[in-house]
């Protein structure tokens, strides 16, 4: 179990403000806009940055000031950070070698984790010859082989193509230890979250289960999730009905194939509506907010 208490940190242009939450052996997604400093949270938990204030407990023990090498927390940064001078096998074995584990045992464990993540065929390759998705799996394997108490993932799919991204999400869903995974990707959040936190401007505005995504209470969160905020009410774009003919002007239409996202000038506010109707830019429409 990991518990974060009143964590604050300023680092470069980012900051964390009074973050508190607690987590069992769950898959926790921290969702927030890109560039909002979610990585700083992970770096504090990993021990790479020292918090300005607050405490971190791992399985009951305070680890706030422990060196990263004494925490047994897995960390996978956004760029994977594979060691370029070591092949895939040696990358995965790195932590075990440092711990002077017996060679045969290293070999067995590396093969096991490589098979679990479908990279057994890559063990002799150099990191730079791997695709983004393969690199991500190797970085995961390198962290998981040490059986960490907690795994930290920093935007693990942000630089991957959509189909590779889906495969990585599949691999991640197999992990059974506690995970904190920061991302700005809603699909990732919906697909993986057992616990979910929403992080905006350095604050953890909501924390709980993933229903938050469908029924946000906080207005900042609602806006970030793409909801309309009209007369202080939070309205999903699916809950606005639209009809051709009326007084409101359609400013923009994005065609997502199965449905369209239309943006309507509703008495000066921009109203987002999802619809399957055939509406074009410049049309006049009527809207019904439910």
């Amino acid at each position, binding site marked *: 179990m990991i518990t974060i208490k009143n964590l604050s940190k300023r680092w470069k242009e980012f900051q964390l403000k009074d973050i508190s939450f607690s987590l069992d052996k769950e898959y926790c997604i921290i969702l927030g806009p890109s560039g909002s400093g979610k990585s700083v949270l992970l*770096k504090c938990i*990993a*021990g*790479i940055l020292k918090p300005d204030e607050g405490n971190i407990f791992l399985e009951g023990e305070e680890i706030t000031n422990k*060196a*990263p*090498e004494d*925490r*047994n*927390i*897995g*960390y*996978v*940064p956004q*760029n994977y*950070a594979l*060691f*370029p*001078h070591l092949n895939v096998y040696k990358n995965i074995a*790195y*932590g075990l070698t*440092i*711990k002077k584990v017996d060679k045969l045992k290293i070999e067995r464990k590396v093969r096991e984790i490589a098979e679990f993540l479908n990279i057994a065929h890559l063990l002799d390759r150099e990191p730079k010859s791997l695709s983004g998705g393969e690199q991500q799996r190797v*970085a995961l394997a*390198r*962290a998981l082989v*040490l059986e960490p108490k907690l795994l930290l993932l920093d935007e693990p799919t942000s630089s991957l193509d959509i189909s590779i991204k889906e495969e990585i999400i599949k691999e991640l869903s197999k992990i059974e230890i506690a995970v904190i995974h920061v991302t700005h990707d809603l699909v990732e959040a919906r697909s993986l979250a057992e616990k979910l936190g929403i992080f905006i401007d350095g604050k953890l505005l909501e924390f709980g289960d993933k229903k938050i995504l469908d029924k946000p209470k906080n207005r900042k969160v609602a806006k970030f999730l793409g909801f309309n905020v009209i007369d202080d009410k939070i309205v999903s774009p699916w809950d606005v009905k639209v009809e051709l003919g009326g007084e409101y002007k359609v400013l923009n239409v994005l065609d997502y194939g199965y449905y369209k996202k239309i943006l309507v000038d509703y008495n000066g506010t921009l109203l987002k509506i999802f619809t399957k109707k055939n509406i074009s830019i410049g049309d006049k429409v009527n809207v019904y907010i439910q």
Partner: protein
Amino acid sequence: MDKIFYFILSITFLFIFLPIFYSLTNPGNLSYLFHAEVLEAFKVTILAGILATFISLLLSLPSAYILARKEFKFKKFVEGILDLPMAIPHVVVGIMLLSFIYGIDPLKELVGPYIVDNFFGIVLVYLFVGLPFMLNSLKDGILAVDEELEHVSRTLGASKVKTFFTIILPLIRNNIITGSILCFARGISEVGALLVIAYYPKTVPILILENFNNFGLQASKPLAVAMIILSLIIFIILK
């Protein structure tokens, strides 16, 4: 436009290439290279170069790491000073080192006897002028190593020291080689500072100058060609 530009590039190239090419193809009497004084000069030059490069590496590895990874007050100033030997005229370096050592009494007594016209005086000069090349080369190398690699290594259980030796050092291997070559090459080509501090034991450039002054151009050619070839070898390794 391209044609004119290519033409000017050709002129520039020939301006540098022709003198080098001419010298290499007109080396004069090469048997002179096997005289005892020549061999001795090469020995002194190369040994002093290697020793200075080695000391420079030992000083630069930790210094470069701090400069690349840490922020501290007056860092820009420190970096500026460490670059200065590249900007100070060669003769002035000699005057400066000499007046410093002879100007401070304990220093004069301690190291004074080993400087003027002494092998270690040559090493001192080589070290002073070569250090910035080593330092900058290593600093560039460490800066190019993604800091996240160090972070990950730490979370995988490696201490700071362990991480330095297992991650940083292997990754800056090429910079260590480049830095060593640059430092060595800068050292052995020095003549201005040596004319002030240590004319003896004679290094190769000093011997070339002496031959030129005493016996003229023809007598200094073979040694000059040998030094060009040495530089070329160093240079080819470097590329």
